[in-house]
Structure formats: structure tokens, C-alpha cells
């Protein structure tokens, strides 16, 4: 007991004695690569194993077939992969939205950067869903005024990027200036509002999509984008998609 006390006291006094007198004389900084020359700690490997096993069994079960290689880069203003993503959000989210509000989704807009991988030709697994959408983003629907839809069109005109869209047809001229936009087969009506499905990330200003920021209404669907992707793949058996004329440039 008293020894321990003495030891603590010694520790304290030695610390006290050191105060203001310990100082750094030199600092050395390094960045060490962790590569395969380092053998993994066997205890850690064993600890991870059951987690890995369960995970891989679930992820590697085949849920669909993909007949063509799909990349978010294989198109100018719309791509087969982007169209697949936007269309599946429309198909998966609309019944939920309709059952909750009685309304239908008019437009889907996602961002090209949000597609985090391609889909290789061959079997599609749940892992594909995780690769396409590694983040936890949720699908939300916003009600936007016609004016905000116009801002959206301006955004797309300036971006000149194949951001995934569905429910909308956009034509731009050789200078990427908007020629016309059809929503649900009709010309944009500036005096009405539209229901747009997107991700919570974009709604909050991600990718500078500021037209989403102050909508007339926000409807949360509590449906993750990734879950929509996986649910859709499970449903369709074979992925069918292609580039089309939803967003094109015409002279």
C-alpha cells in the first residue's frame, strides 16, 4: 500500500520536476506503405473470418444477368447505365410515393458522379449494388415549382454531363442551349409544380444542384438508393437498358 503510494508520489514529483523542462529536440516523420511484404497478424485474420464468410455468402449470390458491359462513360448526354439507374428509381420509388401521397413522380434526377462503378457483362450479384452505390443515400421526392425545374434545365445545360434522368426529354442545340424539354410527354408548364425523385445528398445541394434546396415539399421515402438497385435486380432477371433520346444534342 505505502509502496504504491510512494511510487505514485515519485511519479507525480518526477513529472512535476520535469515540467517546463522536457522539450522536443527532433521530430522525424514517415509514411509507411502497408503492402504484401507484411504478414497479416493470424489472430486478426481469424477474428475477421466469420464476418467475412457471412458477408461473402450474401454478397455473391447471383440475382440477375447483365448481357452487356455498362459504364457511366459510354455516352455523351445519356448512358445505358445512367438510364438504368434513373429508370429503376422511377419504377421502385413511384409505387411507394403514390401509396403515401396519391401523387406520381414526374422526374428522376441523379448525378453521374454518384454512380460509383460500372457493371460487367455476366452474372449480377448484390455486391454489384454495393459497388454501384457504396453510400447510404436515400431516395427522396421533392415538389418543385416550374421555375425551379427551369433552373434544373439550366444546370443540365451548363453541366453538359450525362446525369441520369427519367421521365423527361431534353434537347439542346450545338452550343448546348436548351431547345425544348418535355416532362411526361408534355412541354414544361412554368405555372405548375412537379414531383422529382433524387437522393438526399443531391437535395441538400450536393454537386451544386441548388435548385433542390428549397422545395415546396420534401417527402422522405425511407428507401435507400442501394436497396432500390438490389430490389430491382432481383426483380428483373436480365438487365435491359440502352442509350436513347432522353437527353440529346441536335443541330
Amino acid at each position, binding site marked *: 500500500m505505502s509502496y504504491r503510494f510512494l511510487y505514485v508520489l515519485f511519479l507525480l514529483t518526477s513529472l512535476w520536476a520535469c515540467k517546463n523542462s522536457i522539450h522536443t*529536440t527532433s521530430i522525424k516523420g514517415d509514411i509507411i506503405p502497408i503492402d504484401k511484404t507484411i504478414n497479416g497478424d493470424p489472430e486478426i485474420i481469424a477474428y475477421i473470418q466469420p464476418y467475412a464468410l457471412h458477408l461473402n455468402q450474401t454478397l455473391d449470390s447471383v440475382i440477375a444477368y447483365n448481357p452487356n458491359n455498362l459504364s457511366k462513360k459510354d455516352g455523351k448526354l445519356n448512358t445505358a447505365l445512367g438510364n438504368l439507374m434513373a429508370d429503376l428509381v422511377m419504377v421502385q420509388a413511384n409505387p411507394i410515393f403514390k401509396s403515401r401521397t396519391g401523387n406520381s413522380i414526374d422526374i428522376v434526377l441523379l448525378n453521374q458522379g454518384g454512380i460509383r462503378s460500372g457493371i460487367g457483362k455476366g452474372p449480377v450479384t448484390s455486391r454489384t449494388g454495393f459497388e454501384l452505390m457504396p453510400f447510404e443515400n436515400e431516395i427522396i421526392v421533392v415538389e418543385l415549382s416550374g421555375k425551379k425545374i427551369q433552373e434544373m434545365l439550366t444546370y443540365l445545360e451548363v453541366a453538359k454531363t450525362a446525369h441520369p434522368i427519367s421521365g423527361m426529354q431534353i434537347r439542346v442545340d450545338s452550343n448546348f442551349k436548351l431547345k425544348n424539354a418535355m416532362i411526361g410527354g408534355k412541354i414544361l408548364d412554368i405555372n405548375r409544380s412537379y414531383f422529382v425523385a433524387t437522393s438526399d445528398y443531391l437535395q441538400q445541394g450536393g454537386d451544386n444542384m441548388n435548385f433542390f434546396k428549397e422545395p415546396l415539399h420534401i417527402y422522405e421515402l425511407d428507401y435507400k438508393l442501394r436497396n432500390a438497385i438490389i430490389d430491382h435486380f432481383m426483380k428483373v432477371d436480365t438487365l435491359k437498358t440502352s442509350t436513347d433520346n432522353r437527353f440529346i444534342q441536335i443541330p
Partner: protein
Amino acid sequence: MKRRNFIQQTAATGAFIGLGGLNISLTENPKKHITILHTNDVHSHIEPFGPNDPRNANMGGVARRATLIQQIRNENPNTLLLDAGDIFQGTPYFNFYGGELEFKLMSKLKYDAATIGNHDFDNGLSGLLAQMPHAEFDFITSNYDFSNTILEGHTSPYKIYIRDGVKIGVFGLGVELEGLVTKKLYKETQYLDPVETATEMTRILKQEQKCDIVICLSHLGYEYKTENKISDVVLATKTKDIDLIIGGHTHTFLDKPSILNNLDGKKVMVNQVGCYGINLGRIDFFLDSDKKLNGSGVSINV
């Protein structure tokens, strides 16, 4: 890798002298040796990258990191192991287990502390809180005020670690959440100004607590093109009494730690080791216990 040597002068003597290629240490007999090991933005990368990964083939892996850390601890038991945030999100391990395995493994590797990155909010405050029982290390964040949230009391604004009698003060800075993280996830978390917070933390750690080494664990990001946007580089120049900023968020792969001048004209080291557990940062502090604090320089080798 090229090694450069910087002699840190006191403010009064002005500019530092860079001795390219030379390796001069001012210490004859360093009496204490503290090793700081660090990671950032590991993003749930538990297993190494596969041999076919286009960018990071055969790199990383927690089990290998464990071996490396143990080797360094065997060499110097006076070691601190820190993480600069974004522990969560990036592989299905997070989506399946919610961060449980990440925290359990960090505990097995004996991490001392981590700060909170934006992706650590990905399952909301409740998702983070739910995993905290699996973490046998401290969560340090000084500029997220959680007082109106369920995380209240589960993090510390700073911690002081003592290794071989050396007092090491650690505080943490997180990135602004608005526009980056869905409000629904971070709820009433208040973001406080990083420079003001750092000024207060260094006052406490250096002036009041007389720490021998002050470390900022930051998830602000290394540097931005946008002027005035707070980053580790900006923080280093706008504060004093920080010895080392361990960064994250921008997934910056530095060739070597950066050396910057602080408000007092003294050198601050800033390091960040990319992401995904591909690298381990290692900073060695050699300390002396005589009294020639003023007038002598600190040699910095990177």
C-alpha cells in the same frame, strides 16, 4: 524518398534554414522517445485490396496493419495510435455490421483515440452511438458540440496521454457538416469554428496543462483550392502551440509530412496518409529533459 532537414528557429531569430540532403540532429543523447502512429479515412477497409484492383492492388488490410504496429510497439512501447476519422463507410462490412467490426478491430489494435469524420455520421448519431460500446478507445472532438444530442458525454474535447512521463495533449477538429451530411443524420450537432476552437484547445493543453506535445487530430481536409476554406494547411498557419496536425478527409497521399510555419513562426508538421489503410503514418518525437528550451532549435526530418 528524399529526406530534408529543417532547423526550427525561435521567432526572434527569424527564418529557418533548410539543409537539403543533410541530416543533422541537434541531440546528442535523446532521453525520451515518443512514437505517434496514425491512420485516416480507412473507410471500412478490413481486408487488403485484391490483386486485380486497378489502383491499390495488394495494399492495406487490418491484419497487416496489426503486425506493423506490433513491430513498432516492440521497438518503442511509448507509442500512441490515433485515427483522424472516416472509420465508417466504403465496403459492405459497414453496411452489414454497422461499424461493429471496425471498432472491435481498432480496439484489438489498441488504438488510443479517434476523431469523428463526416462518414462516421452515415448511420446517424444513433448508429454511431450504438457502436461505441465496441470501441475501447477515446473519441476526441473539440468543435462538434453534441450537448443537445444523444452523443452528449460520449466524446471528449481533448485528452492527455502520458507516455514515459511525456504529456501528450490531443484535441480533435471535424469538418463542417452542413451541405456534406444530411441534417437528419447529425441532427442538433453544432459545428464550431476550427481556428477559434484550436486556439482555445492549445491554450488549455499548452498553457494550463503544460503538455510537452500537442497534437490536433483533424478531419478538416489537407488543403483546398477555394481560398479561405479551412484546412490543415490554413489551420497550421493560423494557430500556435500545435506540434503535429494529423489530417484526413481529402484522402491526400503526401510523399512526406509537410512542414509549415505557425503564427509564431515556428514549425508545425502536417501529415495525412491517403485512405483505406494503405499507409501508416509514423512520427517520432525525441525529447530532452534539460532546460535549454529557448534558443535551441528542433530538427525536423521528413
